[in-house]
Every structure is written in structure tokens, then in C-alpha cells.
């Protein structure tokens, strides 16, 4: 099969409007056993959040999002995940988003003020923060690994 030729990836951070953010709720590589931070943290404010989650930004904006920071992780060099930390204007905004994402198969977990877990994702809120961690594969043990990472993020909020 024809392979699309490989070249250096063009850095897109300038064009996508992201910027550095002072607060850092993201655990460094190795801080949580098995997890490496594999990207720089990108931060978006409400007005340019569409550049990160176009089509999904509106629900966060209506709930009062101030900034959203995101970073990629990898567990034991294999399981890829993304951590999004949404800083809302108040705890009510975080609650609104968490409750909107509830489904009957959500498992309640002890994280922050409230949290739920699925096989490939964990969502929790703590004060004005709403954290969503998503893995891109379903592997044995993924849920526990994600929970460990989630606790690491919670400890930094």
C-alpha cells in the first residue's frame, strides 16, 4: 500500500492560538507510576476554545469556562491518553458539565468533589475545576491506570 511520505511535522501551536498558562495541574513524567507526559501543555481561553474543541466549546462557554488546558500522556509507552483541565468560573459550572455527561453505565469514583469513570475515561470535578481524562484504547487495566493518573491530577489542583 502506498504510504504517505513522512516529513517533519509542522509545529502548529502558533497557528492554533494556544498559549502557555501559569498554573500547572499536569503531573510530570514519572510522577505517577508508568505515566509519561508526552506533549507540552496547551491552554485556551473561552474565546478561542473552539480551536481545540470546535463544536463542543459552546457547552463549556455556557457553563462559564475561563480556560482549558490540555496535555497528552502515555502509559508504559503504549496506552495514549489526553488530560483536559477546564477551569470554570465557579464550582457550579463544573457540576453542570459533569452532570451533563452522566450516563447509566457511569461508575461513581472517589475523586475531588465528585467523579465518574468508564472503561476508557474518567471525569471529575474539584471546586471550579472539571477534569476529563480519555484513553484511546481499551486495554486490560486501562481503567485503573487512568484512575491513578486522575488522582495525580487531583493532587495538583
Amino acid at each position, binding site marked *: 500500500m502506498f504510504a*504517505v511520505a513522512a516529513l517533519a511535522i509542522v509545529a502548529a501551536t502558533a497557528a492554533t492560538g494556544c498559549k502557555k498558562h501559569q498554573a500547572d495541574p499536569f503531573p510530570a513524567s514519572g510522577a505517577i507510576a508508568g505515566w509519561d507526559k508526552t506533549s507540552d501543555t496547551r491552554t485556551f481561553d473561552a474565546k478561542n476554545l473552539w480551536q481545540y474543541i470546535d463544536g463542543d466549546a459552546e457547552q463549556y462557554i455556557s457553563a462559564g469556562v475561563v480556560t482549558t488546558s490540555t496535555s497528552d500522556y502515555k502509559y508504559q509507552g503504549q496506552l495514549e491518553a489526553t488530560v483536559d483541565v477546564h477551569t470554570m468560573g465557579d464550582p457550579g459550572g463544573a457540576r453542570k458539565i459533569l452532570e451533563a455527561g452522566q450516563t447509566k453505565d457511569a461508575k461513581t469514583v472517589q475523586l475531588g468533589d465528585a467523579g465518574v469513570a468508564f472503561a476508557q*475515561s474518567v471525569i471529575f470535578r474539584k471546586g471550579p475545576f472539571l477534569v476529563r481524562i480519555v484513553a484511546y484504547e481499551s486495554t486490560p487495566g486501562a481503567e485503573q491506570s487512568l484512575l491513578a493518573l486522575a488522582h495525580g491530577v487531583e493532587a495538583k489542583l
Partner: protein
Amino acid sequence: MKSRREFIKTTATGALILGSQSKLGLAAMLDKQTDATKSRVVVARDAALHSPVGQLDDKRVQDLLDRAIAAFTGREKPAEAWKRIVPVGKVVGLKVNGLGGKGISTHAALVLAICERLQQAGVKPSEIIVWDRNARDLEACGLTVSTDPNRIRCFGNDVGGYEDQPVSFGIANVKLAKILSRECEMVINLPILKDHQLAGVTFSMKNMYGVVQRPNELHPNGCNPGVADLNCIPTVREKVRFTIGDAMSSVYQGGPTFHPEHLWQPNALIVGEDRVAVDHTAWQMIERKRAEAGVPTLEAENRPPRYIATAADSDHRLGTNDPKRMHVMEI
């Protein structure tokens, strides 16, 4: 049960005609088929497309693509079939969708399968551009950026840039990506099927939000009439002529971002020229899955994809949303 050859003969004879009817050489006319007045949509499925652990089988993707294109064109040999879809000597764009991230983006296996068939049909590598909004979206699809002019190019609007002057239709007043306006002479649309919390469903027409600079300005009122108006802008309407929709994986709730708890594998491609009929078919697929999962209909959540009917109305005439005027082939 009919053989594949018999099936193609009886349902898709002489499906497409090249050249003279289309400025771009795209086989735009359905001719001599069972009912030439109907918009043809092919829904091709392979239940074994994913392995038990969820990995796509590249070979089966190629085979599924070949079956879909054969059914649509009525030509069983891939090279012949593709010659009825793409013009020779023109630059062909493949507009993917990587907005949802790695878990729910147009699959690289499909893109590579199409690139291979395009070349077998006589399209040179240098005449193929795979593109999306930016490098990150392309990476999410599993693609690697390349701007080598002698090979298949793969880059985003972040590299290609946007036109300085906006173009308009209805409420859409947008600056088009130069990849669309200047580089490509024909575009094959490769959306990924997803629920969309604003628009209801995102698939063929909604994927065009990735060819403008500020798509968020087209979001009000459930993207209606934003989606329809955008697709009526002449450059979009005339160049984007064919959809090979990726419904191999999908999210039926929580989209357009990746929600693995709502991930589902329809294991299908949805193929057609009529973008409205393609989107209507995709919408019904999402609704069937939502019903199966016990999730309310999009209508019940007050977010049906109203833009589909708008796209079919007399102001837009982009295609049909009337099932009686569609010929949906499930293979």
C-alpha cells in the same frame, strides 16, 4: 442470493459517466441505472472490519472500499471504477476530519486505500492532497505531514493559509482555505460519522466547516442554515463532488469530541455524490444506534440536524432529503 457480479450488474449498470458533463471530469451523472432520478447512496459494511480488540484490518478496509465503489459505479475493477469518479490530470483533494482526536477521526487506512486506488486510476502522487484544519488534526487521523511536491502532499490549513477576501452565501461569510480555493480542482470528502451536540449529526456537509477560517461563526441555531449556506458557496458546491464517509467507528452521543463511553463500530462506509442524501442516511444510522442504546432521539433532545432539510430546500438545492428520491444500497 445473488453473486457480487450479478448484484452489480442488476443494480448499478452504467452508473457514472466521465468527462463531458462535468467541468472537473467527475462522473456526475447517474445514467441507465434502475432509476436515474434517484440519488444513489451506498452503505457498505463488513462486520469483521475490526479485530476483537478493536484494531482495524487494513486489507478489509481496502476490500470494503472496493465493494462500495464497485456498487456505486457499476464497475467491478477498481481502476476502471475510479476512472469514473476522478478526472485525470487534475489535483484531487481528500478532506479528512481529525477534529475529534485520535479516537474518532477519519481512519488513515481508508485514506491510504483511496490514495492507492487514485494512483491506479492514473492520478499522480503529486496530484493528491490530503488535508484538514491543521497538523494536529492530521496526526489524529494517523497521517504525517508532507509538503514534498513530488509526492502525495498532506498538510493543513495552518500551512496552506486562507484567502484574504471572504465569500458569501446566506449567513455564511467565510474565508476559504487556499488548499480548496487554489490547489484542489476536485475534492473527495472523507468525514467521520459523529453525533454533534450543536448540529445533531456531523458528516458530509458539516465536514466543510474545516475549510473555512472561523467555523465557530457558523454554529448558531444548531448550525442551521450555516451548514447549508456554506455548502452553497460555489467553490464548495462545485469542487466537493463526492463523499466516501467513514462510518467504521462513530460516537452516537457526546460528539463531536471523543467519548469512548459512546463509541460504536458500524463497520461501514457511506458513499455518494448527493451530500444531502448521504447525510440523511448517516443521520438515520445514528438514530437507529441511539434507539438501540436507549438514548433519546435527536429530536427529543431538540437537536435534530435541521440543516439537512435546509440543504434540500428551494433556496439551496444541494440534494434530496426525501427517502423516496434516494436509492440506498445496503451491501
